[in-house]
């Protein structure tokens, strides 16, 4: 690992100032991703600003504003504390399931919510400094486009980048219409709808998200919903646990009688950002909750997939995962 200066502060504004004063500085929260990337020589900051003493660790019900009755989770709350918060388990179980599908108990105890949003792709070409990668070094090309791309995107990719976003938590958050709250250099807050937070690669794959320099995530807000009894997070991977998703699906239904009043479907492991399955949602809205409709919804979404050489299996897998997640959600969202 290259030498770096270690700084820390308890004040958010001075943290942002420290970041702005040094273009090679990075924030350090849980460290589970950035330290790994620094050991790999992918990230090369010459200063780490430890922000874990900042006070953005609360998990609380929102008492006013547009998201009143929803929940606010601190940018620096640990993944474990978020997943096990009693209100989140009761009212937003999709988020609990998604967080618990990711990483291991040890990593979830370290990782923060803000860090989860800002983690980098696990594309092996991004990690291998001997390989070209437009995300790591803009202009060098994409090793995965014509390389081994079994784990890569089937939606929204460009020839510049076919990497996927690795988070499970973010798949649930985009499904639940979450809002990312950040503060900037002027000390003021800005709200970013979750679907607009992460980016598709386009011709700037080195930009993972739409934060502007100096912005810091303070919280993520999830509006109130009626999905708690009918939501499910399904993750399909190469081994039963502790592996990144080949495909994952967050499904949430609000069913009245047998009619689907509201529906949210999002996918992980398929795109450069958590992928909201808009086509499937459109198809299901107002229809009855049935296996046949779930099948057609899955077809509606996956017909737009553009698989690469080694990940054609993800199209059929994606369909089946959508159907199964919706079925589990319809049946109460439990594992039994």
């Amino acid at each position: 690992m290259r030498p770096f200066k270690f700084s820390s502060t308890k004040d958010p504004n001075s943290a942002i100032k420290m970041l702005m004063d040094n273009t090679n500085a990075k924030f350090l929260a849980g460290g589970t991703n950035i330290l790994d990337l620094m050991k790999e020589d992918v990230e090369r900051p010459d200063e780490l600003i430890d922000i874990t003493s900042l006070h953005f660790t609360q998990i609380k019900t929102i008492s006013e504003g547009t998201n009143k009755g929803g929940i606010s989770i601190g940018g620096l709350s640990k993944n474990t504390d978020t997943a096990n918060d009693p209100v989140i388990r009761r009212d937003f179980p999709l988020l609990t399931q998604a967080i618990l599908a990711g990483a291991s108990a040890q990593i979830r105890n370290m990782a923060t919510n803000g860090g989860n949003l800002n983690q980098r792709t696990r594309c092996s070409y991004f990690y291998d400094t001997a390989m070209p990668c437009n995300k790591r070094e803009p202009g060098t090309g994409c090793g995965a486009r014509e390389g081994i791309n079994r784990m890569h995107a089937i939606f929204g990719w460009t020839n510049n980048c076919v990497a996927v976003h690795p988070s499970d938590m973010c798949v649930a958050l985009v499904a639940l219409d979450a809002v990312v709250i950040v503060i900037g250099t002027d000390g003021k807050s800005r709200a970013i709808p979750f679907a607009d937070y992460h980016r598709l690669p386009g011709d700037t794959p080195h930009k993972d998200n739409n934060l502007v320099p100096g912005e810091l995530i303070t919280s993520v807000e999830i509006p109130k919903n009626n999905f708690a009894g009918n939501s499910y997070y399904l993750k399909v991977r190469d081994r039963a646990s502790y592996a990144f998703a080949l495909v994952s699906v967050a499904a949430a239904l609000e069913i009245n009688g047998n009619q689907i009043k509201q529906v949210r479907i999002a996918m992980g492991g398929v795109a450069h950002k958590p992928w909201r399955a808009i086509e499937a949602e459109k198809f299901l809205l107002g229809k009855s909750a049935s296996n046949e409709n779930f099948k057609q919804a899955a077809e509606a979404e996956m017909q737009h997939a553009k698989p690469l050489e080694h990940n054609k299996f993800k199209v059929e897998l994606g369909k089946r995962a959508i159907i199964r997640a919706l079925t589990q959600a319809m049946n109460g969202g439990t594992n039994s």
Partner: protein
Amino acid sequence: MEIENKKPSLTEEEKTLFEKLMPEDMNEISALGVQRRHFLKLITLTGGALFVFQMLDRHQIFAQSSVDPALNIVKAGSIENSVNVAFRVNGARKALEVDSRMTLLDALRERLELTGSKKGCDHGQCGACTVIVDGRRILSCLTLAATCEGKSVTTIEGLAKRGALHPVQAAFIKHDGFQCGYCTPGQICSAVALMTEAKNGEASYVTANVRAKATSLQLSDDEIRERMSGNICRCGAYPNIIAAIKEVHSGKDVVQTWQFTGENNQPTFTTGG
């Protein structure tokens, strides 16, 4: 090939060196110059001396990083980007001056002489470095020592109390929960924290219903597998590890069972019970 004899044209320094290293040959060297056998002897002697110096040097490095009993401060001389940090390890307060890059794992192993925690992958993929910080299991390889100020760290060395093994340690021995033993300190620290998590009713990805309130969970084998998935065992001692954890967790003796599976996962042969 004959080596041409040289006239003794040694400098004063060379003379001193030869006198020190090969006093019995000095007269000969002075009269006949340096010959091949002198040269070989010299090489052997200096090689040996270098080795000794290296050993001394190494010894000094160890001495340098050892704990000062009066102050309980571990010093390591001049360090670039140094950070002073104090935390408790297995109940004892430790103050260190570390390179900002030093992980908690390296601080424990290289500076505090606690080599129980193991460096497996050093990238957060294997769990061999698992320790318990402020009651929570974490990966010490992805934790900077500099971020541990004021924290309380428990390593495998801190689990046994007054000479009695921690129940999880005893159960790992009883159930042969290891083969090579390299992942074991991490497995045990992980399992110890798992007990607390289950007691607190924390959920996992395979928990039947995360919405149901729960305390003092009774974990199934599947739950234990999922909750221990961050600890990889390359020897494949998993059935024994699960048996050990289950026994401590349930408080009841566990007998391992095993079976062959045939088509459609139908058991074709079962034994144990």
